[in-house]
């Protein structure tokens, strides 16, 4: 077992967890988040008036970590900052597997007191080789064992995506939005000020983690730049690594300083580093979700030639613009494809050059699949894209109620036999509620969908570039 795995495995796969300082005014958020934790859960709280609330949750409370009658693998600390050194000391004495400090108010405040306290806990943890996560973060999410940091996170089964985030918000949001998009977490960690463990350590850990096939990172700053560079370069050869760098502008770096006390770094150097290491750069939350989805659900391709199928004429124009602007190619189809289209395709109100406009061919549904099959067979294409207009499909559902369900079932079968990457663009228009349902059904059948042409195009372009770089 690699050293980093040995070092962090107890914290990421704990069998016992203790929460220090959870309280009613926070609705016991930590203990509640851990209601489905598969191991043993303890509370440490010295405030007598909090004890009935903790007891009501069925959690055994102790007055000190040291009183817990077994070893503790992972500790969550939510005490006021002035108490943090005392708890860190207890963690050292208890020889815990890892401690996460939710507590904030350290160097990120740029106050004398905050900086002093941060120096104290850093010094203590480093000297004792304590795995200190944070401070100023929400720590580890391991859904398989119900180790959650928010009450609305899922548990029971996990997925293939490891997520490392300097921000707790982005870690939480990515887990929640990811789940709606068929992206489930293997293990994630939010790590705040990174005073002891930094993103490099977590990245090296997830690189060794068998459940993790893709690594996503939100970074505001790194501490050991050279080690990060060397590690990323090695790891990105084995697993795709997506990097979203926060604080790319002068204005943004003002926020990173007060958020996680990170120093400003040149965006040009970051861009070069990401490219040089073979990692994938994403610029925002949506790109992180979309590109991860594309990596998980699209068959790998290095080809940029796309077959586009829209449901109406106006959309066929702008879908082509969007994919072309993203740097993809929309070639003419093969002669054989055109012959096949000519044999059945109604060209009145529609067209099939590429992009396709299938408006007057939508019914019967078999027509759509037939078109898609032709695109799959076409040797001029590397991938296939279908627009699903929810507004249009909802209108059809008024007279053919099962149309959408049957279409999605047929697309699932198509996706299975399609030997090119296949993706859908779910254009909700005004039918937003129906779009959410449709997306859910697509996710259940493993069909990737993107909410706009531009987002789908960008995600496809990014993964094509990634596979080309390998």
């Amino acid at each position: 077992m690699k050293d980093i795995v040995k070092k962090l495995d107890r914290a990421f796969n704990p069998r016992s967890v203790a929460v220090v300082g959870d309280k009613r005014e926070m609705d016991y958020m930590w203990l509640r988040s851990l209601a489905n934790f598969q191991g043993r859960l303890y509370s440490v709280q010295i405030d007598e008036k909090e004890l009935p609330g903790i007891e009501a949750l069925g959690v055994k409370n102790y007055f000190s970590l040291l009183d817990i009658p077994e070893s503790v693998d992972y500790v969550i600390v939510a005490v006021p900052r002035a108490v943090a050194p005392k708890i860190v000391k207890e963690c050292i004495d208890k020889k815990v597997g890892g401690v996460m400090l939710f507590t904030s108010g350290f160097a990120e405040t740029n106050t004398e007191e905050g900086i002093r306290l941060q120096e104290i806990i850093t010094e203590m943890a480093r000297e004792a080789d304590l795995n200190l996560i944070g401070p100023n973060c929400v720590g580890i999410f391991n859904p398989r064992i119900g180790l959650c940091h928010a009450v609305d996170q899922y548990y029971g089964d996990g997925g293939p995506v490891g997520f490392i985030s300097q921000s707790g918000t982005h870690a939480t949001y990515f887990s929640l939005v990811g789940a709606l998009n068929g992206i489930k977490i293997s293990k994630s960690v939010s790590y705040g000020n990174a005073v002891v463990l930094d993103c490099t350590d977590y990245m090296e850990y997830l690189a060794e983690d068998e459940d993790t096939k893709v690594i996503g990172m939100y970074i505001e700053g790194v501490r050991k730049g050279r080690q990060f560079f060397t590690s990323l370069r090695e790891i990105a050869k084995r697993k795709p690594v997506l990097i979203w760098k926060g604080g790319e502008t002068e204005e943004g770096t003002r926020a990173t300083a007060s958020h996680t006390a990170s120093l400003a770094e040149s965006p040009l150097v970051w861009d070069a580093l990401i490219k040089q290491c073979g990692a994938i750069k994403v610029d925002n939350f949506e790109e992180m979700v979309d590109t991860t989805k594309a990596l998980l659900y699209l068959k790998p391709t290095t080809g940029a030639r796309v077959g586009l199928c829209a449901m109406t004429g106006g959309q066929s124009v702008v879908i082509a613009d969007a994919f072309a602007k993203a740097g993809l190619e929309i070639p003419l189809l093969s002669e054989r494809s055109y012959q096949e289209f000519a044999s059945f395709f109604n060209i009145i109100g529609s067209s099939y050059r590429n992009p396709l406009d299938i408006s007057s061919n939508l019914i019967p549904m078999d027509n759509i699949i037939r078109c898609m099959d032709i695109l799959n067979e076409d040797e001029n294409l590397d991938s296939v894209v279908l627009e699903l207009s929810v507004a249009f499909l909802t209108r059809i559902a008024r007279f053919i109620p099962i149309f959408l369900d049957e279409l999605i079932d047929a697309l699932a079968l198509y996706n299975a036999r399609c030997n090119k990457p296949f993706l859908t663009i779910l254009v909700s228009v005004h039918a937003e509620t129906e779009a959410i349902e449709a997306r859910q059904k697509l996710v259940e059948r493993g069909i990737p969908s993107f909410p706009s042409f531009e987002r789908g195009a960008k995600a496809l372009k990014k993964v094509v570039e990634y596979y080309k770089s390998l």
Partner: protein
Amino acid sequence: MVVDEIISAARKEGRTYLTELESKQILKEAGINTTEIGLARAKEEAISLSREIGFPVALKIVSPDVLHKTDAGGVKLSLNSEEEVGKAFDEIISSIKAHEPTANIQGVSVQNMARPGTEVIIGMSKDPQFGPVLMFGLGGILVEVLKDVSFRIVPLTRRDAREMIKEIKGYPILEGYRGQEPADIAVLEEFLLKVSDFVERKPEIKELDINPIFAYSDGAVAVDARVILEAE
């Protein structure tokens, strides 16, 4: 070796800026082709050096105190005879004495006039987090106005070197746009790899600028260079 001698000599004088002559000697040690260059302390020496190197030659002031050589009248180009070299030597010395009376003059460098080629630049500076970073771009106005440059962190692989050359928007110029002489990309890759290798071995170098490099269809030559050392 020569590099360490140059560095320790500069250190002894309390300098972090190396002269063009010293910078080019360092580059030669790193395996990078530079213009032929020698130091003349007297007019006669300048004339005999120019005879050795072959006409036409350029003369440039060598002084750690003169940072803008051209502005101070310290550069004379395209000298075609011994007479011209002798005259240029005197003019440079008197111009520098007039412009910068306190400057410590080491002498005048004599170098061959490189045939003009496509101008490119290679630079190295240090990022506080990631260490030495190389920059590549087209020289002259394109780098100054358009910031058409690419970056890579040291150490570079051959692939990095190739990609950072191809990445600049002006790459078609290097390929020989509209019948212009193309640039020897393989040699530019070698330059980048050699600089990468060299600065990795010499952490005492803080900044390095080779500007311009003249790139030809068969080879390239560093025409001007500047090296800055880390403060001790």
